[in-house]
Structures are given as structure tokens and as C-alpha cells.
């Protein structure tokens, strides 16, 4: 019976791992810097979910406090990242990672 199934901590951990995986895959596959950037945010939020779940599992408050710090860091990253993207956009219309070829690694 579906109603009897209670989500346990493991479910959340697996969900977080899947979200983190999607984010990782996205950064590697997608070519638009903004989308890559969103994928990084997805990874950070997957980690947040992991932290909250683990904090509940071991009954410790540190893991929950961490989430606030990570949110602030993510917000700061948005500011810096969009700033750089805008600086590039001003020089040319439309950016994809494949266009950024002045430096070859």
C-alpha cells in the first residue's frame, strides 16, 4: 500500500545524490554558461538537502546551520558570475562555451 510507505532519511539522501548527479552532468554537457551556472546551483542545493537530512539523522544542529551559509555563498556566486557574463555579453551578442576559444587548453 502506498500510504504505508514513509520516506526515510535514505530516500532524501538518494534524491540529493540524484540531483547532484544531474547538476554534474549538466555542467559537463550543456554549452550555455548560464545553464552551466544553474547546474552548479542545483549541485549546491543538492548538498544543502544532504546536510539537512544528515543533521536530522544524527540529531545535530550544525548541519542545519551550514545550509544558511551555503545559501549566502550561492547568492554571492550569482552576483559574481552574472557580472562576468554581462561583461562578456557587452563585447559580443550571445555566449556559448564553444565561442570562448581565445584561450586553448
Amino acid at each position, binding site marked *: 500500500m502506498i500510504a504505508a510507505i514513509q520516506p526515510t532519511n535514505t530516500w532524501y539522501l538518494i534524491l540529493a545524490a540524484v540531483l*547532484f548527479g544531474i547538476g554534474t552532468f549538466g555542467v559537463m554537457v550543456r554549452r550555455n554558461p548560464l545553464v552551466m551556472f544553474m547546474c552548479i546551483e542545483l549541485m549546491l542545493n543538492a548538498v544543502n538537502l544532504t546536510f539537512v537530512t544528515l543533521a536530522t539523522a544524527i540529531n545535530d544542529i550544525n548541519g542545519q546551520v551550514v545550509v544558511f551559509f551555503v545559501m549566502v555563498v550561492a547568492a*554571492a556566486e550569482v552576483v559574481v*558570475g552574472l557580472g562576468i557574463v554581462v*561583461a562578456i555579453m557587452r563585447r559580443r551578442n550571445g555566449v556559448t562555451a564553444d565561442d570562448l576559444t*581565445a584561450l586553448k587548453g
Partner: protein
Amino acid sequence: MFAAGLSAPDIQWAQLVPLLVLLGGACVLLLSTLAGSLPRWVAPSLTIATTFAALVVSAVRWNELYYNKGSYLVADAIAEDRFSMFATIVILVAVVCAALLMSSHHDNANGDALENYALLLTSAIGAIVMVAANNLIVMFLGLEILSLSLYLMAASDRRREQSQEAGLKYFILGGFASAFLLYGIALVYGATGAISISGISERLAGELTTGNKDALLLIGIGLILVGLGFKVSAAPFQVWTPDVYEGAPTSVTSYMASAGKVAAFAALLRLFMSGLTTRVDDWRPVIWVLAALTIFVGSTMAVVQTNVKRMLAYSSISHAGFVLVGVEAASHRGSDGLASSMAYLAIYTMLVMGSFAILVTVAGQEDSATSLDSFKGLAQRRPILALAFSALLFAQAGVPFTSGFVAKFGVIKSAVEAESYAIAVVAMVGAVIGAFLYLRIMVSMWMEDPTNTEKVTIPRPAGVVIAASVAFALIVGFFPGLLLDAAKLVRFVPL
């Protein structure tokens, strides 16, 4: 149910003075950008004065720590010990050099570089927090403060498109690596139930982790190594390094290559040598592989480059490999690997600063002439510069009677004493292959004819950095005891 666990920590303001000084300096600099056009010398001198103040305070603290073993500050979030003070001093020296290089860079630019000095100071705060962090979250915050400032500094040269490209690449890949590091921290936290490094060490010593918890811990350690490996540009996470180092303004590159690496290595050393000592058998082989790969990739890929900035980027990768050899040695009981790694980082910082100072001088105001061609016949255009660069390149190659020899000999000796013979052999072979790169630059400078016979002018601040780093390379080369005795004192807060 958690409310009882919350209480405001005591803050030991007196011991946080170096950080507060830097923060104050950064705020003053940011506000002064609002004041409109200031004379050009104001921002660099303010930065250097601030950093010197922090440097003096740190030196005094280092002296006091000679007599005690250090302590934890702010509810165990920050560790103040000889290890953190040593790394702090190295970072602050790097900041002074970077500020000097920036001021010679932007001599003719239209005052748009003021924010760069403020970012330099904030990134130094991040680096210092990182080397002293005893709490994984504080370490992550330090890393982000450092990295966010560096992303912007890398993208700050608005006249060169490569600079913005470097900034974006660094930003995307840096954010990617930070996410891995954070996920690793989360899993280690879940497995041990502690978020502070000393707490993790206590938990791991007290109980054996088994089953699921063990898996969580091992995956966590792996992910943390990925994140920090990226920051120190260890192979196979080094792909960003040449591109970002080439694209960023040369003065910023020098700072990324020195302070950024010192901070990441210090965080890595503290976490693994102080927090995860009981699991040393699990992570030592990983460090071994990283070290061997990094030295190999750094020395071989450098050979095919045609741009001196990229060559120095690959050489910095191979230097990171040598430090990892020291880390591997340090993981053995009774080894002096920690001291030799820290000595390596200090020596490497000065070498890298001097080399990039020469690059700043040769690259000129547009910061564009960094190809090997522009170094052709430098001995005819400005002999003193070619001589200084040769001294620094010899030192980087590890020729005896230079600081580089002391550094490389130190880590290899530690590895041999720890009976890690294989990695010591890899390091020696890597050093030989790496020497080819440095000789190639020297051949260009001394034996080929210049394409451009104009005399190179040396901006005075860059000249100071070059002179200081050549002097350091030779003095430490002839009297290694001066630095090694200090490095041998490096200790973590005892548990």
C-alpha cells in the same frame, strides 16, 4: 529540540587582528573608489601599508607561539598555531608582491584598477581564514571568499577579451569544484557527526566507522580531495590552470599561483594531517597517485608550450606535484614531510612572484607580449633582466645553491626517509624533464637574436619584487637553515 545547543561564542578579537586589519583596509579602499580620481599611488600604498601592518602583527604572534602550542578561537572555528601563522605570513608576503606588480601593471591605465586592490585584500582574508580553519564550513567560507575575489580579479582587465574568458572559465570550473568539496564535507559530517576538524579526529579515534558510515566517509574524503585537488591544480583536475593563468592579468596570475595554492595546500594539510590521521591508509594511495600524475603532466606538457605564461602555468602544476610528494611523506609516522611541504610552499611563492614580475615587465602595458618570441634575445635588450630571470629559472629547476634545490631536496629527502622510494624516483625524473622547459626559455633569452630591439623598461615596483625574489632565492640557497629552522617549528594545535 535544538535550542539548548545554541549559544554565542566568545570572540578573541585580539588574536584576530591580522584579519580585522585587512578587512578595514579593504573597506577603506572600496569607499575611496567613490571619492573620484585619487592620485595613482594611493591605492597600492594603502594596500601595502595594510598588509605590512597585518604582517607585523602576524610576525609578533609567530614569536609568541614559539613558547606555546596555539589554541582554538571563536568556538573552535579557527585554529591559531604555528602552522596557520607560517602560512599566513607566506600569504601576506604574496599579497605585498602582488600589490607591487599590480601597480606596475596599471601605470598608464585609467584608474579602473582600484577595486582590484580591495579584492586583493578580501581574497587575502579568505586565504588566511582557510589556512586557520578548524571547522570545515569555515574552511569552505574561506575558500569561497578567496575564490570569488579571484574570479573577479581574473576577469578584471577590460581591454583584453582573454581576461574575461579566463574569468568565466575559472568561475564555472571553480564553482563546480566547490560543489564537490561541499558534498564531500557533507558526507564526512554525516559519517562522523562532527563538523570541526578536531571533532572529526576525536570521533574517528574513538569509534571505528563501519558499513554505511564507512562508505559515506570514504566517498566524502574522495570528494574533498577532488575539490581541493582542483584548487591546487593537481592532475587530473589541472585543465583550467593554463587557460586561466594565460588569460588573467599577469599580476593576478602571480597571486593565484602563489597565495591561492598555499591556502588550498594548507587547508588540505590541516584536514588530512590533523583530522583524518586515523584513516591515513585510505587516503595516502590517492595522494600518491595525484602527486605522480601531477609531476608527470606538469613537466611533460610544459615542453610543447610556446607562451611563457602557459609554461609557468605548467611549471606551477609540477611544483604542486612536488608539494604533494611532501604531503605523502608527511602522512608517514615520524616524518618531517609537513616541514618540507611548508618550506616548499614558502620558497615556491617567492620564485613564482619573481618570475611573474619579470613577465609583467616584458609583457608591457598591454600585458600581451608573453609569447616565447618576446623573450628572444632579452639578454641584449636588458641583460640584468635576463640574468635575474635565469637565476629564478635555475631555482625553479632545482639547481644547487638556489632556494629551489633546498625545496626539492627537502620533499624528496622526506619521501626517502618515509621509505616512499617510488614517489621519490618519480619526483627526481620529473625534475629532470621539467628542467628542459627552464633551459628552453634561457636559450631563447641568451642565444637568439631579438625580434624587437627596443630596450625594456623595468617599472620600479616590479623591480623591487624581482630583486627581493632573486635575493631570497640565493640567500635561502646558500643558507637554507634560515628558512628550514622556521619550517621545522610548524605544528598543529595538539588535540
